[in-house]
């Protein structure tokens, strides 16, 4: 550590830490001991997204577990659900109590614990996961210049991240006047678009997801 408490290695070029963000994942597939098992979701078929724990390790092409309890409250018929970064896109047709029925828009293979994206839905996920918090602190020891905050939904989320950055700086013993990393909010959901102005006021920069544009065009 230098006298100001700042990291010793300082790069000429800037570093940007892109966080994973709070994430929703599907469950483990039924009989998937190796971790390489896949199921094929066929275009036009119907699938039920389940949130009860009994499906957590028994997902099939008919019942897919999603690890977000508030799923049925966040979704409405007509909204899109993306699996594995958009490899499979589904449209919500019916919302039940803890279950969501979708029709599959395009065929694709899905593995256990695939990423789930709800671009049109407003969720109550936290601004940062525990991994994000640890990553930001680690990044600050490496003197990162920017933090790209994934799946930001509101200005409150940006404030939370800023507060975490300040706390990390204190814990790392940085001087008060040492510049903190700038926050760049990634706009990846409808909720973020609704709160765009507030997020912009709080953030130092913005990123926009290309997929967002495509999903809104649809």
């Amino acid at each position, binding site marked *: 550590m230098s006298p100001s408490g700042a990291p010793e*290695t300082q*790069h000429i070029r800037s570093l940007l830490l892109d966080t994973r963000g709070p994430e929703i994942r599907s469950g483990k597939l039924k009989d998937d001991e190796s971790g390489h098992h896949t199921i094929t979701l066929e275009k036009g078929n119907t699938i039920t997204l389940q949130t009860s724990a009994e499906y957590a390790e028994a997902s099939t092409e008919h019942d897919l577990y999603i690890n977000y309890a508030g799923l049925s409250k966040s979704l409405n018929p007509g909204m899109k659900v993306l699996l594995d970064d958009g490899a499979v896109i589904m449209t919500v047709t019916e919302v039940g109590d803890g279950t969501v029925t979708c029709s599959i828009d395009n065929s694709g293979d899905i593995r256990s614990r695939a990423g789930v994206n709800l671009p049109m839905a407003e969720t109550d996920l936290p601004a940062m996961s525990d991994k994000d918090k640890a990553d930001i602190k680690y990044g600050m020891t490496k003197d990162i210049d920017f933090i790209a905050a994934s799946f930001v939904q509101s200005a409150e989320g940006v404030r939370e991240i800023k507060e975490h950055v300040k706390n990390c700086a204190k814990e790392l013993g940085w001087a008060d006047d040492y510049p903190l990393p700038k926050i760049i909010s990634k706009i990846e959901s409808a909720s973020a678009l609704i709160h765009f102005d507030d997020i912009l006021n709080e953030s130092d920069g913005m990123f926009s997801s290309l997929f967002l544009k495509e999903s809104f065009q649809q």
Partner: protein
Amino acid sequence: MFSRIALSTALKSASRSSRSFVQPTRAALKIGETRGGVALSTKFDLPDPGRFCPIRGTKGIQLTKIVATIGPTSEQLGPLTEVCENGLSVMRLNFSHATTEEVELRLTNLEAAEVSLENVKNYFPIICHFNEWLFHIVISKYLLLYYPTTTKPNPNNNDCI
């Protein structure tokens, strides 16, 4: 022909609206044509900022910044040095996939790439004694680097070279 029709349409719509200025488009005005008796200016008095301080054999300062995601194909020193040389401004580290070891490797290689690039192209190394060690001191407008060389100090030479 097309440009004259477009110009006439633009002028008519300008006279109808309260706005006194119509944004000219490439199709609407050509060099040498006039609009309202005033010739279209085809030159700007502002100097081209890209022509200031030519560096490193390029045409000028890189005005557009490039954010590049460094992953398994570009994290080794060779490719990363090339990426830096060709204009990387911001290295994006995607923590959705990267492990701590991978990040460490990318940062170490970035530092090495920067040192090798700056040493070769921009810096004037100075060799001097300090505390019985021989140092390379490298100065630029960005940073000061110093690292011990493997050469033994020469007792007859106490001055910096």
